[in-house]
């Protein structure tokens, strides 16, 4: 009880509460001097784009360490609150930790202050975590390059933000991708948006899902660190949407059919 008794008011900042309880996001490694080589986020493809009903977010499932495939069922699109998803590329330990902090941060703020955190506040909260992680990122052991998607209840609009590893945030009105496979598909997304049958923002949900699956299969074709889907093993990319009703992940039983449809021409 002491911590609350001694405080007159709460800022609603969960990260502040964590630090007061002795927590550190990063270890003392940051004081060991800069690494000889900065390793930028690799070994993933995650993407997000606006479609007719909101934002579609997708990610492959592979986790690697150097040339080794460590895990084929990694969840790289993570729920943060009812209206927000974070897609991660980079060092998984740091990325998952950031997602957990962020998730608790939004919920702690909403419950303690009895109002949801503003969208600007949510965007900034991730930026702050990345900034606090710069030391680790520059030493090549903790770089994270996320995409954050959220539905702004005030303006009734879905939003996509991507970040650099230093914490700068960038809003995108069309599409974004990050991770080692992203260079292979960014051009496709831009091409589809400009010269496809419809701009991405006008795609139906089904067309958006098909495109997302095809993009990830394409990335996997050219990037060894991005995993292919394996329908026989019921291994599919993670596909989720954020709309006015909140987030929704397409379950495995639906993915079997969706993947099949996506792999046929047309």
């Amino acid at each position: 009880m002491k911590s609350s008794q001694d405080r007159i008011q709460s800022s609603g900042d969960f990260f502040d509460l964590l630090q007061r309880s002795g927590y550190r996001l990063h270890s003392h490694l940051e004081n060991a001097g800069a690494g000889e080589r900065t390793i930028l986020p690799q070994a993933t493809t995650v993407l997000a784009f606006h479609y007719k009903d909101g934002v579609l977010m997708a990610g492959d499932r592979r986790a690697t360490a150097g040339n080794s495939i460590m895990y084929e069922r990694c969840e790289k699109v993570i729920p943060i609150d009812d209206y927000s998803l974070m897609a991660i590329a980079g060092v998984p330990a740091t990325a998952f930790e950031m997602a957990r902090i962020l998730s608790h941060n939004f919920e702690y703020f909403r419950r303690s202050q009895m109002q949801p955190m503003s969208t600007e506040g949510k965007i900034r909260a991730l930026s702050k975590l990345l900034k606090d992680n710069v030391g680790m990122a520059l030493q090549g052991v903790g770089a994270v390059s996320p995409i954050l998607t959220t539905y702004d209840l005030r303006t009734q609009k879905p939003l996509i933000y991507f970040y650099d590893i230093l914490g700068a945030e960038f809003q995108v009105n069309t599409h974004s991708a990050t991770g080692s496979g992203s260079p292979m598909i960014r051009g496709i997304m831009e091409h589809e948006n400009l010269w496809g049958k419809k701009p991405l923002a006008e795609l139906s949900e089904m067309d958006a899902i098909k495109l997302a699956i095809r993009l990830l299969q394409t990335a996997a074709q050219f990037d060894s660190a991005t995993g292919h889907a394996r329908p026989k093993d019921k291994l599919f990319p993670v596909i989720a949407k954020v709309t006015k009703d909140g987030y929704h992940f397409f379950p495995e039983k639906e993915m079997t059919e969706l993947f099949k449809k996506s792999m046929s021409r047309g």
Partner: protein
Amino acid sequence: MSMFEEPFRWMEAISTRHSYVREKLQSGQPVIAVPYQDGALILSFSPQPGKIFEVYDRIAMGGMGHPADVERLRMTLLDMAHLEGFNRSSQDVNIARMLQFGIAPSLKQNFEEIMRAPYLIKLLLLELDRNGHPNFFRLNYDGYWETLKNGGAIAGDEKVMAWIDKKIEETPFATFPLEKALVKACKLWQEGKQQAVSDEDKNGDDPAAPITLKEAFEKWTLEAGVLCAQTKRKSIYRKIDAGEIEKLKTAVL
């Protein structure tokens, strides 16, 4: 000479402290928590919102007493729940652990340190466990807490509280749909307030305080929330919305 050297003076001070807190809480308005077929419901009427709160993914609370003290304990519960949920898992967060190992011992110690201001509160806590089963708890200002099997109430007037508790026990709330549980709980709120022996007691320190549902809906705000097992969200608490309150008003008035 310090009163700590004289046990009788310390006991007398504690006794006086009990009397002081009970007197301060006397006008506290009832808060009622009951099960319903999809989860658990908590409600209360108050001049301004600030009695019913979400604590964690599957936990809610109602408070009565001094708003500043309710707020301090609310924040303590929030801090404990979120730190535990972060450091371990949301599955490790439950009311019994927070009361037994956190709030209750500190509250008791605070109450018996007679140079410190006592907490002027009673809290009613509820949760849905992982099997969807509702659990109810009542916490007293001195750290004493108890589990309530089928729901319960807090109120400044002990007679009112005991009467509502008894009626809740006799009513099969767990079989009711939400609309029916809301209606019945509201009626218990009204009938409970009638149990005070005199008009003065009915309203405590505030003669203008409503004693009927009609007055309560006109003058005050109904605060109500549910923990619903049917939601797909991680946080299963939601407030009863304006449309549901309008339907409730029509049903009870």
